[in-house]
């Protein structure tokens, strides 16, 4: 098996960095013009970001003030980090942060592996008539709101009428009181989130795989590489940039949990909090009485800062290991 063949192919495809430019001087002269065109192309989206993201950014200041609308955002009293205290004040608060990070890591890792697997399966039979049906079915969960999901999770797991317990009973096994047993829930929630997300997340990888030059596979087949080897030596390296960018971006949201999943699907059952209470549900619960805007803002700020630091850190790592001709980092 000639692995170097892949490398050669790739190098052929990779941009010949300086040669053409030295060959065509006129192209270099147009570089400024091209830069201007690129900037104009970027402009609509940049303007949108400026208005919708940067203009509203000053609102983060609310997190550090005792916000009163009649005094305005900058007229309100500055209270340092008071609004952040409730995020660290109790064991439950610390637990919420811990659960959020651990569950998200689990979801990100398992989600990526599963999405890659499903994308690969779809890729292998992509020309089949059935594939469009598979893809459509896999996407269906995306349309079902968490409330409705919570109904049929309950239909599966409820004590007396639940399908799972009926099955266990039928097999002569001990029934489980699911909604009072926190230990099972990381797995249950993982399964639900995989179920809900795989249709979407596999699409990104599938579109990456579809862009790979089929000749690479033909060459590999001639060399006698089996399907698994084709995956590890061609498919995976080729979509690695997509995987990395996806993982990097997931880090940004590591402190944010899907409220619907954790609130509705667990039915907000307190006995499950030890493993299912995440920041978003904890914040919601803490602020039901006061509905304090400053504290809500502080919580959001906390989530953002942690995500930001993590992304900067991992981006730095990626930059250290990426190849010059194949940038993988975000910036």
């Amino acid at each position, binding site marked *: 098996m000639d692995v170097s063949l892949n490398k050669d192919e790739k190098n052929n495809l*990779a*941009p*010949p960095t300086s040669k053409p430019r030295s060959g*065509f001087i006129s192209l270099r002269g147009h570089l400024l013009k*091209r*830069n201007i*065109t*690129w*900037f104009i*192309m*970027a402009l*609509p*989206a*940049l303007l*949108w*970001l400026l*208005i*919708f*993201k940067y*203009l*509203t*950014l*000053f*609102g*983060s200041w609310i997190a550090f003030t005792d*916000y009163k609308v009649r005094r305005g955002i900058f007229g309100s009293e500055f209270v340092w980090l008071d609004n952040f205290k409730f995020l660290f004040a109790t064991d439950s608060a610390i637990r919420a942060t811990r659960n959020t990070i651990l569950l998200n890591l689990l979801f990100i890792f398992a989600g990526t592996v599963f999405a890659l697997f*499903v994308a690969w*399966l779809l890729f*292998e039979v992509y*020309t089949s008539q059935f*594939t*469009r049906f*598979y893809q459509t*079915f896999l996407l*269906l*969960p995306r*349309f*079902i*709101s968490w*409330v*409705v999901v919570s*109904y*049929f999770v309950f239909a599966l797991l409820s004590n007396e*009428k639940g399908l799972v317990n009926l099955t266990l009973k039928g097999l002569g096994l001990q029934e489980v009181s699911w909604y009072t047993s926190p230990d099972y829930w990381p797995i249950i929630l993982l399964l639900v989130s995989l179920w809900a997300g795989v249709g979407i997340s596999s*699409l*990104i990888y599938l*579109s990456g795989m*579809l*862009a*790979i*030059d089929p*000749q690479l596979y033909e060459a590999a087949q001639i060399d006698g590489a089996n399907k698994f080897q084709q995956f590890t030596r061609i498919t995976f390296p080729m979509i690695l*940039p*997509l995987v990395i960018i996806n993982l990097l*971006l997931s880090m*940004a949201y590591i402190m944010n949990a899907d409220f619907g999943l954790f609130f509705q699907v667990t039915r907000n059952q307190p006995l499950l909090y030890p493993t299912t209470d995440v920041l978003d549900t904890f914040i919601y619960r803490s602020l039901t009485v006061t509905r304090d805007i400053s504290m809500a*803002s502080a919580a959001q700020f906390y989530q953002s800062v942690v995500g*930001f630091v993590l*992304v900067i850190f991992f981006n730095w790592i990626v930059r250290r290991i990426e190849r010059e001709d194949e*940038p993988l980092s975000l910036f």
Partner: protein
Amino acid sequence: MSHTSNLRELRRQDTDRVMSFLGRFSVHIALIIFSLCCLTPLLLIISASFTDEIALTRNGYSLIPSQFSTEAYDLIFKNPRAILQSYAITIFITVVGTTIAVTIMSLLAYALSRKEFVLRKPLSFFVFFTMLFNGGIVPYYILMTQYLRVQDTIFALLLPYFVVVFYVLILRTYFAALPEELFDAARVDGAGEWRIFFSIVLPLAKPALATIGLFTALNYWNDWTTSLYFIRDSNLYPLQYLLYIIQSNAQAMQLQSAVGNITVGEVPTQTARMAMAVLATGPAALFFLFFQRYLIRGVTLGSFK
């Protein structure tokens, strides 16, 4: 010798064919299982929506209605205007919003994917930074209602998803992988950046565009939070918001029982909620089946050759 080796070669090809068939067969089996996992809950919902309300509560969910009834749909279509209008709104914002969003996102992504673009790094950071930090809902609300003044208009539903940084970065990664020699060749032919973008980059990136387009369309189709904040006019309710409101009204009304007031309106039934879920999902699924063609067409163009 050569004869036996030929025979062996033939046999090897046979085995290959059998293996390849078995391989494909098991791939199909796996995908069928996954599909069923995704399909069954929806079938349960459809079945529930056609079940008599009281029978559903008593007997629970089943794949075949324990007592068939179209009452839920009768209830919803008692006033068909509301739901039809919601369909129109949802389809409109999905089509128009996705078109605009994919256009401006891919333009930005293209610019950011050009290694010779001097502002590439700072602008990448400018773009990426917004993914993490946002000012929260209050400044956003003030912006939308007091400066842009789009509350209770269709614009409020269109604007929020024009740029999703995540998608821009995915597209950028995709564009960056396109072979540079194509661009150089086009430039030699005298093509400007706009022409390169529209006649080389976009056609080659069809699978990626279709994917991002689909994501964006799903965002618009599934969005109810924007309406929750900015839409009061019931003529502008998108489908998913109508569904959300039916559900959350029931929850909000329970609050009154705490103060001894229990006679508010009719709480929508479980079956009606299921019927709404079916109505909100079904057409989108059909649309996706149709949309699939574009993804498949992408395959034939698949390689960067």
